[in-house]
């Protein structure tokens, strides 16, 4: 038996192990969502789609999901727009302290989100008392809170795409008679289309899955999907939670498929 073949097989083992480690939870969750018993037990006694029906019959889950999507979409649009403009600015020319500015955009990632959430809540409550206005909770603050945690991702991803493109392209466009805006819209932005897509997906997922910021800033009587999920698991042990998770997995898969259709996934990540 030749040594090379053995080496090749051996070198693949870690890859397979890591793949299992990553994918097993997802597969298990999907599997469990179809268990029929009221408690999650192995081996399953039978299968049903009861928990999916249960999910849609519960109004609070549906409205929480709606709010989550709403907030995530708006937060994504805002942070991708700001991220794109920031990257243009950062790559316009090398200025003193560019690295510092670039790094400081990642600062929100270093603070635990729950702390940021509390800080925003406490500060705005106090300011609200001074100006005699109720600032929190409000939809605006909820969305902006999400923007704070999503914007580092947007800037990071778009900026890395932007710094990889040939600066001469922009100059060529100017040279051929385009003005600055045209040069960006027609020549530079198409080059980072896939980075913008990647940033969009990432930002959406980060916002959609966020619990801590939402917990602090959501209004009374409102709820978002991660909060509702947490509430549910405190009191119930049935596979409804697995059903929610499965739907989230499906949603992300759909998003990736759409992006694949639009720009090709291999260009995105």
């Amino acid at each position, binding site marked *: 038996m030749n040594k090379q073949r053995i080496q090749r097989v051996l070198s693949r083992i870690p890859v397979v192990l890591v793949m299992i480690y990553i994918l097993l939870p997802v597969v298990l969750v999907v599997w469990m969502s179809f268990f029929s018993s009221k408690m999650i037990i192995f081996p399953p006694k039978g299968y049903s789609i009861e928990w999916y029906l249960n999910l849609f019959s519960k109004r609070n889950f549906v409205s929480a999901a709606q709010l989550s999507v709403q907030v995530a979409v708006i937060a994504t649009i805002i942070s991708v727009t700001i991220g794109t403009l920031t990257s243009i600015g950062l790559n316009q020319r090398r200025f003193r302290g560019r690295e510092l500015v670039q790094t400081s955009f990642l600062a929100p990632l270093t603070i635990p989100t729950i702390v940021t959430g509390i800080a925003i809540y406490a500060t705005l409550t106090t300011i609200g008392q001074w100006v005699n206005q109720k600032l929190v909770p409000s939809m605006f603050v909820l969305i902006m809170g999400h923007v704070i945690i999503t914007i580092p991702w947007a800037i990071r991803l778009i900026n890395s795409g932007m710094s990889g493109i*040939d600066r*001469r*392209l922009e*100059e*060529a*466009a*100017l*040279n*051929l*008679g*385009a*003005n600055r805006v*045209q040069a960006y819209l*027609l*020549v530079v932005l*198409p*080059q980072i289309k896939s980075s913008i897509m990647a940033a969009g997906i990432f930002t959406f997922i980060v916002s959609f899955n966020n619990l801590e910021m939402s917990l602090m800033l959501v209004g009374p009587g409102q709820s978002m999907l991660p909060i509702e999920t947490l509430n549910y698991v405190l009191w119930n042990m049935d596979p409804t939670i697995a059903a929610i998770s499965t739907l989230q997995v499906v949603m992300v898969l759909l998003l990736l498929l759409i992006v694949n259709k639009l720009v090709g996934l291999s260009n995105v990540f």
Partner: protein
Amino acid sequence: MPTDVRLENVTKSYGPQTVLGNLNLDVREGELVALLGASGCGKTTALRIIAGFLTPEEGRVLIGGQDYTYKTPNQRNTSMVFQSYALFPHMSVRENVAFGLKMHKVEKSQIKPMVDEILSAVRLEELGERYPRQLSGGQQQRVALARALVMRPDVLLLDEPLSNLDAKLRHEMRVEIRLLQERYGLTTIFVTHDQEEALTMSDRIMVMNKGVICQSGTPKEVFERPRSRFVADFTAVRNFMRGDFLEDKFVTRSGTEIRAGDSSRAPGTSCLGIRPGKIALNPPDSDAYANVFRGTVKIATFLGDKVEVLAVLPSGEEFILEVPTMAWDESRYEKGKEIVFGWKSEDMLYLTEEDASK
């Protein structure tokens, strides 16, 4: 329409570093001028100032007699071909070429024939629907040229356009660029570090060093009569003898006496130069060969149709000779053997050590 270009006392620096110090440059209508110099000499900076990507701190940029110093790139009708070509990757060849016309709001019905014409001029009619990544280096180069030429620019600017091509293609493109330039009568400024490119393609060469032009003239003038050691070095002169005139002779630092007339011949000369190809092996006994030396072979390198010989005089002075392979008898001139060589006075170059214009 093609027009003349002038730079008047242009100064540009990056921080404390002066890249262009008082540069003056004059390109006539329809002329192809090569800016020749090593990297960092300021030649690309000069080009970028003409295109409007950079603004000089002092001086003026005149295109067709009008002051364009502070105009933005899109207010000038200068077309640049970039070293990296800078083709738009998300556009087909046709879209790349049509881009400038669209930006200038040319009627849609007129764009197509203009693009067709220029694509056939650069022999790319078949490849209009391809994308840049599907093209070879030479084809990309032609798209870049077509994209620039279709604008019928006042000035065509070429930034090292051949440096990304292999040797064979480079030779072809030299001729092709020259033919297109003549066909459209374009005023062209061409930046290169390759003396051969500059000599073969241009009407006039301007040799740049440290941000100033140290010599300009026709390729023949520059090649045959370089004024400074720098220019000579850049045009493949390889034998330099530094020294001073002493009465009717020139004495090098190692004490070799060379018959070069007296200092009135070329005031300011502090260095003599001779091309390796101009040194003859066993020169005939005639007055034309005023300088004949006896030395020994240090090393001989076979280069195909010629042999490059490093010969050393008893004084230690070294010379590089190029001898046609046919005239080279290996057994007679092996290492350490005696060799007699000399050159005609008229082939000797009288050079200043530093650039005269400084």
